[in-house]
Structure formats: structure tokens, C-alpha cells
């Protein structure tokens, strides 16, 4: 199989038996799944089920202990030479991350920078974009998330929903091919959830490949192509959202859904 051919038919994310443990605690016990290009996958499940850890593995913020994880056909965090896996140099790992955007539960904006500076930081430092180009792009992104007038505001001066929309714009500024969302609305007041979900829906409609850890079942039903239910470090059930939500096959899925729906 030539490299070019494999790339064009490769899914965006492919996980084969991904394991992760923190010391004696095994958090992921062999995750198998694929996310196709342009697809939105929602990960749901009780807390402690490993959803967030799996998301962080995709971005190599956590090291995979066993199994293979590919993003766009490229092994994440490791290099395969002969029959052995070699861990990537941190600089190479950083290079892989720049194409993957990530949005965190607690926004994690840089508090000492304005909204605009938060967005232009990575394009200028990592992609070496000229400043005026980065600023112009950032302003366009701020408009896209509906915060064009907040360019000069500091994170502490913005509401949670506004901060999270800035965080999305910051991730988009790197022009990612894949966006990871780690419970993006869990830290928000109920009336602010909608504005963030709207931005995410818009992204999904634009064809962005997204993996979303969420408790928003309404969002999952409306936007997701695949719904994955995880529990205790393993995938329990996956399929089209209406199927999983309306007629879950597994007992654990039923028990979980009865609590959140």
C-alpha cells in the first residue's frame, strides 16, 4: 500500500486496542474505534469512564501504553521503525499537535493575554505567521464565534460562555483538521450552554471532524454521526445517536441513559 493511497482512504482517527494506565490504575482497557473525515463523534458515559483520557491520548497529552492510535494515518506520539515503536521527540510530538485543536472543560485561556492575543499566540509562535495576518485571521474568527467586539477584553472580564467561544476560536486559529472537545459546556451556567453549542453546530455543518466528550444528549442527537457510550475504560456500545439513545442494547447503557435523559 503506498503512502498516498493509504492517506486518502484513512479515517481521521483510528484507535486499535488503546490502553492507558496511571500507575496501577488502568483507565483505558483497549479502545477500538474510528472517526471518518467530516464526522462528528460524541463520547458519553459516567465520570471516570476514561472519555477525557482517551481525548487527551489523541492529542498525545497523555502517552498511550499499549495499542495503536492513528490520526490522519499517522501514528500518534510514536514512530514505527522495523517492528518496534519509538517514542517521538517532544518537538515532533508538538508538531503533530498543531493540526489538532482542543477545547477544555475549564477553557484554559491564558489570563495574561487579551482575547485577541490568546488567538494569535500559536499562529505567530508556532506557524511563524506574520503578525498582521494572524491578527486579521483572529478578528475573522472572533466574528465567527460572535465576539468581534471583545478582542481587547481579558478572560477575567468575560463570561464563561464567551471564554469558551474564545477558546474555540483559539483552537481554530491553527487551522486544525480535527477538533477535540472535552466537556466544553460542563462548567457553564445553563443559560450560557446554548451559545457554545451553536458555535459547535456551525463548525460541524462546515464539515469539521470533531470528537466531543459531552453530557449534552440533545446536542449529540442533533449533531453527532456516531454516539459512543463508554464505561470503565471500554467502549460499551456505539452507533447512530437515535439508535443508541432510543433503543440501547446494553444494560449499562440503559442504566446510564435513564439517569441523564
Amino acid at each position, binding site marked *: 500500500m503506498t503512502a498516498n493511497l493509504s492517506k486518502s482512504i484513512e479515517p481521521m482517527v483510528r484507535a486499535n486496542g488503546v490502553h492507558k494506565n496511571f500507575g496501577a490504575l488502568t483507565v483505558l482497557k483497549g479502545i477500538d474505534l474510528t472517526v471518518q473525515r467530516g464526522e462528528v463523534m460524541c463520547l458519553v458515559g459516567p465520570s471516570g469512564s476514561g472519555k477525557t483520557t482517551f481525548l487527551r491520548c489523541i492529542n498525545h497529552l497523555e502517552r498511550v501504553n499499549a495499542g495503536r492510535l492513528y490520526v490522519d494515518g499517522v501514528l500518534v506520539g510514536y514512530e514505527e521503525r522495523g517492528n518496534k515503536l519509538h517514542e517521538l521527540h517532544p518537538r515532533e510530538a508538538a508538531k503533530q499537535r498543531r493540526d489538532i485543536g482542543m477545547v477544555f472543560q475549564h477553557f484554559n485561556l491564558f489570563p495574561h493575554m487579551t482575547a485577541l492575543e490568546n488567538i494569535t499566540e500559536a499562529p505567530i509562535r508556532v506557524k511563524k505567521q506574520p503578525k498582521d495576518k494572524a491578527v486579521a485571521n483572529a478578528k475573522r474568527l472572533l466574528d465567527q464565534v460572535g465576539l468581534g467586539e471583545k478582542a481587547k477584553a481579558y478572560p*477575567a472580564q468575560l463570561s464563561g460562555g464567551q471564554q469558551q467561544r474564545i477558546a474555540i476560536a483559539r483552537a481554530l486559529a491553527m487551522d486544525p483538521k480535527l477538533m477535540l472537545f472535552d466537556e466544553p459546556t460542563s462548567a457553564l451556567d445553563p443559560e450560557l450552554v446554548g451559545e457554545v453549542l451553536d458555535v459547535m453546530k456551525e463548525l460541524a455543518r462546515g464539515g469539521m471532524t470533531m470528537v466531543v466528550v459531552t453530557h449534552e444528549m440533545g446536542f449529540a442527537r442533533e449533531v453527532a454521526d456516531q454516539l459512543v457510550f463508554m464505561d470503565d475504560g471500554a467502549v460499551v456500545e456505539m452507533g447512530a445517536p437515535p439508535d443508541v439513545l432510543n433503543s440501547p442494547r446494553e444494560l449499562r447503557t440503559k442504566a446510564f441513559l435513564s439517569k441523564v435523559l
Partner: protein
Amino acid sequence: MTATQWQPSELQRTRDAYRRSRARRSWLIALLSSAVFVGALVLSVGTSPGWPRVRESFFDLSLGWQDLPGLLRALWINVQIMLITEVFVLVFAAIIAVVRTLQGPVFFPLRFVAAAYVDIFRGLPLLLVLYLVGLGLPALRLHGAPDSPFVLGVIALTLTYTAYVAEVFRAGIESVHPSQRAAARSLGLTHGQTMRHVVFPQAVRRVLPPLLNDFVSLQKDTSLVSVLGIIDIVLTAENYQSQDFKFVHYVMAGLIFVVMTVPLTRLTDWVARRQGWQGSGGGVV
């Protein structure tokens, strides 16, 4: 405004009056207790058998006033030492703090040296460091080694204060939440870029109050360089003292230090307060 003006109710008015009377009462009590305290102090010191001689030797301010021009001229040396030392301390302390946070086995020797340096120089009394550097270094007769007391004094102060300030910086770096690093790394920034542009600026903002505190302390400790024979403000006062055996010259020098440190102390307070709204934790306080 057409709406009727808010009027305090009868009950509210009696409440306000009661509060005012309580406030007056607190004032009176504070005044009375202060008067008793000062009275007791004056009485006990003033009636002590040695007081007339102490007053004559230490508090003859009309005599001390004449020192002012000479002392202020000598103070310039202390100010120079302070400013030069501060610059070196900031640079070296930042380097050592960052070295101590480096990860990976390759950096073990660097980390070890940095930690050992901090442990040693935080423990050594400044006076001993001044002797070791000021008298020991020239005694080595190394070619090109500095022999000016001024330079040696700056080196000794820098060695000691860099150890303190490095710890202040390190505490700041470690206080920045790991999620900030995760966010920076997820954007593709390298470890170095993350430290320099995300972690360090936040750390410095947070440690500004303790940092200024250390500088207030440094400001005073510049007086210790007089042991190397630098004619600074303290040695000048000593010279005056050796002429008439009165200690008012030291008191004057002390007053000058107090007057000089107060603005820096107030600046520290102001910076600490100001951080409230620009909070680096992301919360609105």
C-alpha cells in the same frame, strides 16, 4: 427623576443613629487606650536612670541634622549597589528557577547544581558571604579576578539574593495550573515556548509582591558592604560617630533607610491590591 426619592424609614434612622453613636464610642476608647499606652511608655523610658545620657547621645537631632548632606552623598553608593545587584539577581534567579523546573534525566546535573546552590546560599549568613567573597576572592590572586570592594560587594549580595529570589520565582512557576501548560501544548507550542510565553509571565505577576519584599530587604542589606571598607552611608555615620562619640549619626542613617524603604513597601502593597482585578487565576474578584 420623577420617581419619589428614597426616604429612610423611622426605624432605619434610629438604626443609623445607634451605629453613629457606637462608632463615636469606639473612637473614644481607641483614643483613651492610646493615651494610656504612650503615657506609660514615656513615663517608663523617661524616668529610667540612663535616659538623659541616651537622649543626649542618640536623639540630639539638631546635631544629627548636620549629617544629612554627608550621609545622603554616601547613600548614593548604597543606591548604586542596590540597583546593579537587582538587575543581576533578576536575571540569574530567573535562570535558576527555570533550570530547577527542567524535566528529563539529561538535565539532572544542572538541576542538582541549581538546587545545591540555592540550599547553600540561602543558608549562609550574608555577612559571611561578604567576608568569603570580599576577602577570600582577592586573596586567591587569580589573574583578572576583581579586587574592587564595590564589585566584590555586588557579587556577594547577588549570590545571596539570587538564591532567595530563585525560590520566589520557582514558587510562582509551580503555582501556574498544569491546565495552562496543557492548553499551550495542545496548540503546538514547545516546552520552551510554553514556559516563556505562558507560564513565566503569569508566574512573575503572581510573585511580584514577595519579589518586591525581597528587594526592600536587599535595600537595607546594602549597608553590610561597609564591612569591606566601602564608604557607604553606614561607614560615613561611623566616621562621624568616631569624632564626637554620639550615636545620633547612626539614628540619622537609620531614618534615611526607613524613609527610603517606605515607598517600596507601599508600592508592594499597591501591586498586591491591583492584582485583585487583573487576577491571574482567571477569576473575577
